[in-house]
């Protein structure tokens, strides 16, 4: 794969450029707009839920922001990724290029977006009087696993979207459910062990929890958490890669 990547580097760069230009070129706010999105949700959640849940959770703003920054990345990445293959049908039905390049190009875009939001996040942490420790460096780990996880989910969704064009509605509902099921603005402490088990199986929640433990708890999660995150990422990537390999020459029938 690295060999093909270096061979297709020029193409990959041009695809990334194209996606960027198409997204930002003709808007006044440009990149600022996509960073505004998590901030606006943050504001709404803080206002709406601050009274209910805020009383029992310290640093409530940072608490929500941890959830938001991860969830918005996931939802943007999966939504963009889902359309990446079908949107380039005119290309891959004429030229034989590795089809995952389209998805990776979109991932670069959402990653940059996420990293910019992270800067705002750190600024908010500082406003919220969070103690910065060396452990913040460990945040690179969930970012890495989340990136791989997002790519994997993107591969799966983009393949499915070629076959089933109503995937975007279905995924829209699924994302909505996931948003409420990821404990973004509430806490799972005090829930029954069974309910906590369910949350433990939610990859997005696990990444959020990692963030919170480092940022608000000032501690690094245990080894098992690290392995679980890696597991989520690799399974998603494996399923996605399998679908792309298996259907590589068959996507053509559906576009």
């Amino acid at each position: 794969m690295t060999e093909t990547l270096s061979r297709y580097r020029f193409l990959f760069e041009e695809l990334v450029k194209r996606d960027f230009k198409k997204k930002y070129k003709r808007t006044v706010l440009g990149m600022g707009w996509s960073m505004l999105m998590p901030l606006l949700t943050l504001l709404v959640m803080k206002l709406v839920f601050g009274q209910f849940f805020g009383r029992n959770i310290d640093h409530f703003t940072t608490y929500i922001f941890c959830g938001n920054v991860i969830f918005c990345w996931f939802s943007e990445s999966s939504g963009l990724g889902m359309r990446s293959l079908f949107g380039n049908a005119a290309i891959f039905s004429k030229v034989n290029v590795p089809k995952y390049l389209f998805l990776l190009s979109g991932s670069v875009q959402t990653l940059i977006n996420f990293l910019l939001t992270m800067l705002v996040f750190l600024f908010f942490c500082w406003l919220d009087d969070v103690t910065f420790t060396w452990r913040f460096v460990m945040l690179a780990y969930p970012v890495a696993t989340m990136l791989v996880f997002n790519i994997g989910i993107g591969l799966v969704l983009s393949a499915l979207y070629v076959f089933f064009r109503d995937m975007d509605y279905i995924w829209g509902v699924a994302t909505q459910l996931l948003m409420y099921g990821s404990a973004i603005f509430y806490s799972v402490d005090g829930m029954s062990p069974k309910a906590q088990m369910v949350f433990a199986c939610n990859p997005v929640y696990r990444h959020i929890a990692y963030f919170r433990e480092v940022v608000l708890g000032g501690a690094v999660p245990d080894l098992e958490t690290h392995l679980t995150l890696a597991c989520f990422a690799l399974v998603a990537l494996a399923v996605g890669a399998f679908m792309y390999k298996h259907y590589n020459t068959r996507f053509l029938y559906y576009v």
Partner: protein
Amino acid sequence: MLSCSGVSIRYQVGDFKNIGLKEWVMRRLTGRYKVVEFWADRDVTFSLESGDMLGIIGANGAGKSTLLKAVAGIMEPTKGKIVRRGKIAALLELASGFDGELTVRENTYLRGALLGYTRAFMDDAYGSIVDFAELRDFEDRPFKQLSSGMKSRLAFSIASLIKPEILILDEVLSVGDGAFRRKSEAKMREIISGGATTILVTHSMGQVREMCSKVLWLDKGRQIAFSDDVPGVCAAYEAYLKNTSVPPSFP
């Protein structure tokens, strides 16, 4: 250089497309899910040597484009085998695949990248591409503002720089207006005379007679003839088109 032996390609068409997941599940459950399969190409066999130029002829729906896609590696043959030696370049339906939002310059680079050129090569060649396409004044215009003739001119100009060992052309010789057409045909000849093995799909019998050293006649996916007797096959094909009779059988 290139050989196809017993190549058959089965296409899927029918209800399965655009039905969505909910409908798909329902149809699967009620047993009304039907995929219609048909053979776009059946048992096509031919082989080409270096420097050969093959013309593929046949009415619409004969399986010409599908065969090209398989040769180019975009599709896989359901049965049979395709052996290619050397770098392959397929120029299929050139004007599509550009992005309307991007400028002429951006599209040129993207297309170059898709065709496998390097960035250094594109930096060098960009000026001559735009000049050849006569689009100097339009460099920074969004692509959607261009006329379709301009689009095909640009597509041709980028593609004509390619130096493959096997070249596949689908109706790309006839590009643009009178003056540009002459220019593009001359350029095409230059590429072909460079020793590439070329496959050409066209409806112009004149082009086939004039340029091709071998000819393959397909009819509804079946191979009617593969021969180096180009005038003979062309004459038979024209007679068939005129009388719409049953295609003759060739040895």
